[in-house]
């Protein structure tokens, strides 16, 4: 499938697949550096957890690869990969949400001394 795509792109005079991929890779790296460069310490833990959830995107790799997998072992490997990836995605986003919603719950941070007694 990849070969076909490559051939077609080449026939149309476009860049080869790998160069397109590398271009995207470099740009994504800069986006990653840029977006994170100024984060308060406060948010480091949720942020680590959030980026952790995003790399759960690997589950796509499992979904793509399973279409062409042959044999029991390959399919088993990919099944485990999909399970792992799903844990990463679902667990990652949920746990990040749990952490962040605690930050959000705060009412306007009024001076604590004036807070009504409970």
């Amino acid at each position: 499938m990849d070969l076909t795509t490559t051939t077609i792109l080449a026939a149309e005079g476009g860049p080869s697949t790998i160069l397109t991929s590398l271009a995207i890779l470099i740009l994504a790296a800069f986006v990653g550096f840029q977006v994170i460069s100024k984060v308060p310490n406060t948010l480091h833990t949720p942020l680590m957890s959030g980026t952790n959830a995003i790399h759960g995107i690997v589950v796509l790799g499992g979904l793509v690869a399973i279409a062409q997998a042959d044999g029991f072992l390959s399919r088993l490997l990919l099944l485990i990969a999909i399970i792992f990836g799903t844990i990463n995605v679902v667990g990652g986003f949920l746990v990040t949400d749990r952490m962040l919603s605690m930050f959000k719950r705060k009412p306007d941070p009024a001076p604590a001394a004036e807070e009504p007694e409970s």
Partner: protein
Amino acid sequence: MSTATAFFQQQDFITAAYVVAFGMFIVGLAKLTSPTTAVQGNKIAAVGMLIAVLATLLNPGLDGADFLLIAVGLTIGTIIGVPSARNVKMTAMPQMVALFNGVGGGAVALIAFAEFRHDPAELSADLAIGIPLVLAAIIGSISFWGSNIAFAKLQGLISGSPVKIPSGLLVNIALMLVAVGAGIAILLGSESQGLFVLILLAAAILGNLAVLPIGGADMPVVISTLNAFTGLSAAAAGIALNNYALIVAGMIVGASGTILTDQMAKAMNRSIGSVLLGGFGGEAPAVEGAGGETGGTVRSTSAADVAIQLAYARQVVVVPGYGMAVAQAQHAVREMAKVLEKKGIEVKYAIHPVAGRMPGHMNVLLAEADVPYDQLKEMDDINQEFGRTDVSLVIGANDVTNPDARMKADSPIYGMPILNVDESASVIVLKRSMASGFAGIENPLFFNEKTQMLFGDAKSSVGEITSELGQL
């Protein structure tokens, strides 16, 4: 011909959905960097992920059996992932992230192996596929095993203290050479499955041996590094599979994870290199302090006495540490602070960048106890205030208050920025016992003449102080 056209249109449609998805990742991540937009940012990224997964399922190459497997995989993953995320205690967050990170790396390694099995010859025929696949296998496997060790250390399944491995660096280099060598053999045309397993195996042992010698205190940096690794391995897999969503999301995590690691390491005054080469706290900890001048006397005090000191203070700074979180004392601390505030006493919280187990971990824990955001002071701000603070209340914190970091050049934590609690008029340390901190180092603060120790469980100690305060 018409089916071919439909196919490519569909392929284009999938790719277009990927573009939308990674756009949402970028927006989501940007919003994650500010407290006010972070919740929204996380949701945006999650929706992006959903779009990417749904689009991938449009792949016409998938048949009924594939869908069955996918459904099983997604279901099992959800069944495991949701309760773990829901039920994990906030104190256990670092190891939870380690675990989620590990399975991500494991998935990459498995996918690389399955791709190799699908068409072993392709790896040498097209190096643009072969090289990234080999890299994905190596990095993914390191990340999986390394994260598992980090998890086991933080969870207390294995000792958190550094495990010395004889000539560890040489062994690690040798393992890396084995993995890379096997990879090169495959890229040169070998189709042996054994060789690919050797790559995964060598990387697995490397992942274990690389993290074992690192002490618990450095674990946040390790987890963050492995987080970046998993991102990079996902990007490598994305190049091999020609999947833009994987490339972009993986690389963004790889890049941001690297920055995050660097920021954490800086907060601990550690270079990433020295952390990964291991040995923190490995050089005969605790013993040196015991023989030195620090081995003075410790003065212990009572809750009633502490209450009196607090009641006559103008400013009290609470220095919370992981010990407070373990004792689940944050709510009790919040109650005590309320009582103090009613008496007109200023209460602030000094948050060391690595208080808890990760940067920002303490903020999460205090937020859970409804401590107002504006009372949490970052290290640089609060350090200027200790001079006019009457009482510093150190609750379950240790290493981040250790003056050795300022003064004792041969201390393993020398140079680490600390909270200068010893500058305040008096210091009260709530501690379970005289055991040393996570880094395994003696703390001379406890022997300082300004310092009084209140031994016992942090939660009940704080509770007693609060009730004593009520009687004043």
